[in-house]
């Protein structure tokens, strides 16, 4: 069948999955007085529509920051304003100042769900289609398989269309940035990424690879000639786009500071709730959250994060190829997730995006990682009554991605790109047993995650350990993530520094 037909069918399947998941409950449904992320988004529409710009990030009589105050950069606020204008045309009750708190109705739910899908269709899905069809390597079958699998990735579907958020906007913009850089349109790519950063500050997880890649590229072109010109052009693009996005908040330094203060709430501590990163898992054994002061916590996380991204960054600077760039995105976002400050479980989506981009080359490990990332968000999904769609979408994703890529068969040392690593360290795996070990580990991992999932949903935790299952899930996921961090770093770092003729760029 023609490519356009196959791609259309994949997109339609992805959209069907999204709409059917939308039928389910959302974050904080009927849970007065605070509700959840759904109410937060509705509240931001209310605030941005009814109040002047200078009041959006400040605590005023009309704007109570304790009730879901804005804590994303300005582009989110502008997006909310746009949605609010449309809401106003349909039913002004939805965004009436103060009176619409906790507003819930089937019509409103349909509207909100529609805004998410609309953003998906406009930004994220076209980026995925362009990536799979034009930048990804492989036969047309591999490309279509990648397209289908990326669009069926459960984590993003469950969070955006279930829990309720707009991650597809920021991830989509970041992906457009990656596409720009991959096609050689550095300025457009930088512009797109700047927009992504101005939508959600968590995109900073991806910022370092963008920076090192562009810097490395300029360096390769010659820092005295073409490289310098490119560097200047990129810097100007970034500065101007930032300025345009933040324009209303740049006139008054108080405004700028307040926005930054809202974006980076340092006072909230190393982590909140149960999240599958190092600090939360460490806290089970050593109560670092209470032992160390907030400042020490900040320095500790800052230091370890920097250390964790250092090797990958240096390698990327030395060898700025597209393949290295994608690996660096993976390593950077995963390192930030594991060691950074105030990480939420949804931030794993920032690492999931680069993993999707590695599907064609490293199918087994990408699928394994993506599956684990969905699993790591299980406690959140259980709170939102999304267990049923979680099971179905996870099952669908893992079965179809393994089937379409024949991923389980591609588990040899070479398939996993660990050949250079083995040669360097001198380890000599017996060729047949490496693959078997990997397959066994994979099977065991999937079974463990399935078991924990069902136990979390079906069983009541003992009275003395009420958080038993979320802790077990987070710890299990954290162990996996540490393993993936090691693996992806090895793959990136041990790649030969010479440019091979046969390798993909």
């Amino acid at each position, binding site marked *: *069948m*023609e490519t356009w*037909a196959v791609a*259309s*069918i994949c997109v*339609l*399947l992805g*959209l*069907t*999955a999204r*709409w*059917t*998941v*939308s*039928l*389910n409950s959302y974050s904080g449904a009927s849970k007065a007085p605070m509700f959840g992320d759904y109410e937060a988004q509705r509240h931001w529409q209310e605030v941005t529509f009814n109040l002047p710009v200078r009041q959006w990030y400040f605590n005023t009589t009309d704007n109570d920051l304790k009730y879901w105050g804005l804590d994303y950069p300005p582009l989110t606020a502008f997006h909310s304003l746009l949605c609010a204008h449309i809401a106003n045309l349909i039913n002004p009750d939805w965004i009436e100042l103060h009176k619409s708190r906790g507003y819930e109705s*089937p*019509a409103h*739910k*349909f509207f909100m*769900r*529609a805004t998410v*899908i609309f953003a998906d269709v406009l930004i994220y899905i076209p980026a995925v289609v362009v990536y799979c069809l034009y930048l990804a390597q492989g036969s047309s079958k591999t490309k279509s398989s990648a397209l289908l699998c990326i669009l069926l990735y459960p984590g993003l579907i469950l969070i955006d269309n279930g829990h309720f958020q707009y991650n597809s906007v920021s991830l989509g913009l970041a992906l457009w940035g990656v596409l720009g850089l991959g096609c050689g349109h550095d300025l457009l790519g930088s512009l797109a990424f700047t927009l992504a950063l101005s939508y959600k500050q968590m995109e900073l997880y991806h910022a370092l690879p963008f920076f090192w890649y562009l810097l490395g590229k300029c360096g390769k072109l010659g820092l005295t000639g073409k490289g310098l010109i490119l560097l200047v052009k990129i810097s100007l693009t970034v500065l101007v786009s930032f300025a345009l996005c933040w324009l209303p908040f740049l006139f008054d330094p108080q405004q700028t500071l307040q926005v930054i203060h809202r974006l980076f709430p340092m006072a909230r501590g190393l982590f909140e709730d149960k999240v599958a990163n190092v600090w939360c898992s460490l806290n089970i054994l050593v109560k670092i959250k209470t032992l160390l002061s907030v400042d020490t916590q900040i320095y500790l996380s800052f230091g370890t994060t920097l250390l964790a991204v250092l090797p990958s960054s240096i390698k990327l600077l030395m060898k700025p190829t597209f393949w290295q760039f994608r690996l660096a995105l993976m390593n950077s976002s995963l390192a930030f997730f594991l060691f950074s400050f105030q990480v939420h479980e949804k931030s794993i989506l920032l690492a999931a995006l680069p993993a999707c981009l590695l599907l064609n080359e490293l199918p087994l490990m990408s699928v394994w990682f993506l599956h684990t990332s969905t699993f790591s968000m299980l406690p959140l999904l259980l709170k939102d009554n999304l267990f*049923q*769609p979680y099971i*179905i*979408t996870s*099952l*669908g994703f893992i*079965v*179809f991605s393994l*089937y379409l890529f024949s991923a389980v068969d591609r588990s040899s040392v070479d398939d996993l790109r660990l050949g250079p690593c083995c040669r360097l360290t001198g380890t000599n795996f017996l060729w047949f047993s490496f693959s078997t070990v990997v397959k066994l580990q994979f099977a065991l991992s999937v079974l463990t995650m399935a078991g924990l999932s069902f136990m979390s949903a079906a069983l009541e935790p003992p009275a003395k350990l009420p958080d038993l299952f979320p802790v077990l899930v987070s710890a299990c996921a954290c162990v996996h993530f540490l393993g993936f961090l090691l693996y992806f770093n090895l793959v990136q770092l041990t790649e030969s520094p010479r440019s091979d003729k046969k390798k993909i760029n």
Partner: protein
Amino acid sequence: MAAPRDGTLSWFLALTLGVSLIKFLLIKAYHSTDFEVHRNWLAITHSLPVSKWYFEETSEWTLDYPPFFAWFEYGLSHIAKYFDEEMLVVQNLTYASPATILFQRLSVIFTDLVFVYAVKECCKCVQGGKRPRDILGSPSFVLAVLLLWNFGLLIVDHIHFQYNGFLFGVFLLSVARHFQGRHLEGAFLFAVLLNLKHIYLYIAPAYGIYLLRSFCLIQDNSDGSLKWRNFSFIRLAALGIIVCSVFALSFGPFLALDQLPQVLSRLFPFKRGLCHAYWAPNFWALYNAADKALSVLGIKLKLLDVAKLPKASMTGGLVQEFQHSVLPSVSPLITLICTLISVSPALFSIWHRPCGARGFLRCCVICALGSFLFGWHVHEKAILMAILPLSILAVESKDDAGVFLILATTGHLSLFPLLFTTPEFPIKILLMLLFTLYSFTSLKRLFRHGVAAGRGQGSSPAGDSEQEFGVVRLHGLVHSHDPQRYEP
């Protein structure tokens, strides 16, 4: 020459799993009053003795399917009690707890396995062209998708709520058995099917004529005409025994209880009126519309007296009998006559010039279409009875593919009013686009080189005119006949 067997299982399983996952995701979707109908029947068959099944009237949704379906519900009710016992209480009208919804939805999904098995059997019967390089281009694969992922079946069964997958599974299995030459099994399955849902009476004439002509008459003369000497009474007796014993098993208990008239009145409720609350897009809908238009015109031109016109409106959405204002009223007998007239050319055709199993299937489609167009109190869901069997013919013949595309697309569009809720609106659009896009592109690709075994190279002499009459064919007024003969 069967379809390639290598790796058949893996892609078939993948397709089945894919559509099943979508069915699971639709569990939370809107369900119609048919959900309550089936819950009520679960309650009736579980809580009451057999003698009361067809008399129970607590709910307005009385049992109006044949006895085998009642026994089917009885069987399901024994599993239902592990989900929520309250749903089995007859007085709990419109009871729809989450456990009830889950159970009912799961029961549809799991009984669909019958349909899956039937599709597998049909795929084996379909003849591929020259061996395709890839599985995706083979007729079996295309047929599997067109049947398993059929849009109409998905939304009627898994959103609106019915058990058509299970029933069509029995029907398609019966068809597959006829293709495979296992006629007694096919007849048995059809007899069972009639006792599960009597709407399949629409195609009973096709079965009757085909079996009589192609099964009981063992061999024809060399010029194709009848050879009565070769009439096999043994085969006729075998068929008779099978059909009679199935009907005896089904209606026997009620005959013994002297309840046959009551059961029949439940099965054939002619008081329900010419058209259903939602008009099926058939001939009588046009007839009603014309009548309405003429009456409005008549009032405007002062030819008719408003006071003398019947007050009740057919567009009121109610299920009851009406009288027409201008045009003559239509009785059930008239609809029967019209139906028989519309399908008789096809029936004569398979009698005089039998074309084997494919001719029989084509006749089934025409019977279904004729009954849909001219039948009494037809539901729009009945169009599926024509679309699904036509899928099998569509992957083998270019002309049939053309008709199938028109019929399936318009038939599916006509099902849209069934889902009128806002959250399901995007889902039905997406699924419709998915199916339509796939059916058009895959069938086009299948016949791009104009080769498909069986139906002949290129189009038959009547092929081009058949394309033009494709639309007219929809109305069953012109039936297609194949000048070439097949061996059964």
